[in-house]
């Protein structure tokens, strides 16, 4: 028997004028590191790092389920609403969680759409963070599939979504973690993956903002897996090149969900990334 050190609680914040009951987990102590999951998934993607005693000895890892995802409820009235995530709503949600939890200039670590919004936050609210770890993150990705496939009355969107994103998982991933990763997509609520992909595949607003990111104040480190078909190493390199001072690491044996699909393979890259982040004044004092 074993009990993990991760603890989970709920936080209610107001986003775009309505209350959101948000589930968050945390483990560790010290510098706050806020972790954002990918589209169609939830905080479970971060569980391996949150259970890593070496990492949590000096880092307080916090992950939350976006509204509509995992154990966070959709807003009241969702039954007649079409879920379409937007950049503004996403930014407001992340900032509301930071304020609600009283986090002082956390490191922001986000994967996929979480990496995209991390770069948006680096451009627009960089002073509220001490650094950005943008995983499988790029400036813009048009869809190479039809996002409407994943929300239709005659098929199971979660199972189709899982089958699609399996294309982004490395053959080096341990089989159990491959399927644990896919299970989250299978469990995703109806239309949620589609609504996330709408944000990820249609909003190009980050492109002109990339050169404005001030990495002298808040470092930006991008990490990308070679088996990622959605955000390829070329996409990540193009993005890093557009951010003055950004750094990049390519993981030869990992895919689009590195912290979840292959925790051991990702671990050294994440530790390296944490080492590149600055310690905020408040934390250093």
């Amino acid at each position, binding site marked *: 028997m074993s009990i993990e050190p991760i603890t989970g609680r709920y936080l209610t914040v107001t986003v775009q004028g309505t209350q959101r009951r948000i589930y968050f987990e945390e483990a560790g102590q010290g510098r706050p590191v806020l972790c954002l999951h990918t589209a169609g998934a939830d905080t479970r993607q971060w569980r391996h790092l949150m259970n890593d005693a070496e990492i949590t000895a000096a880092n307080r890892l916090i992950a939350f389920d976006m509204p509509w995802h995992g154990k966070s409820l959709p807003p009241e009235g969702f039954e007649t609403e079409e879920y379409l995530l937007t950049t503004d709503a996403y930014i407001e949600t992340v900032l509301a969680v930071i304020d609600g939890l009283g986090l002082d200039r956390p490191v922001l670590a986000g994967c996929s759409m979480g990496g995209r919004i991390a770069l948006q936050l680096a451009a627009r609210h960089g002073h509220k963070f001490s650094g950005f770890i943008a995983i499988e993150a790029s400036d813009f990705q048009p869809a190479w599939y039809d996002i409407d496939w994943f929300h239709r009355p005659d098929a199971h969107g979660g199972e189709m979504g899982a*089958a699609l994103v*399996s294309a982004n998982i*490395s*053959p080096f991933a341990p089989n159990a973690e*491959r399927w644990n990763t896919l299970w989250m997509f299978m469990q995703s609520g109806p239309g949620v993956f589609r609504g996330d992909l709408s944000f990820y595949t249609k909003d190009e607003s980050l492109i002109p903002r990339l050169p404005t990111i001030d990495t002298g104040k808040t470092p930006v480190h991008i990490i990308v897996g*070679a088996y990622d078909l959605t955000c390829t190493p070329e996409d990540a390199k193009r993005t890093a090149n557009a951010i003055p001072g950004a750094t990049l690491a390519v993981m030869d044996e990992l895919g689009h969900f590195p912290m979840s699909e292959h925790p051991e393979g990702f671990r050294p890259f994440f530790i390296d990334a944490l080492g590149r982040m600055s310690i905020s004044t408040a934390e250093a004092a």
Partner: protein
Amino acid sequence: MIDTFTHIQTRLDGAPHLLRLGRLFSETVLIDVEGDEYYLTFEKGRITSIVEGPSRKTPWRFALRTDGEALAQFWKARPAPGFHDIFGLVKIGRGRIDGDILSLVKNLRFFKEVMGLARASEEVAA
């Protein structure tokens, strides 16, 4: 190539979870390898016939068009990036999918795992 598809057919018959996943899949799929046509007919998840083309008379639901070297890479235990998935082949310009793509997507896990049955190692999932 026909031997590989026969091998897949045999292994599919011995894979109860795939027969369960494919129980509603009764379609003909065209695998086009550099112009060589192979028509795989599925009945309730089983491959009931493998017919070589060319044929202009055989209706098919969807087609995967690729080349022999790409398939050889795809069937390695740990393929190089892009060769590890049928959509990867499309992404790197070594494959094309035609026809009723929604039919493929509705049965995507089943079809990808069936194609992966020729992989060198059983330990690596499709």
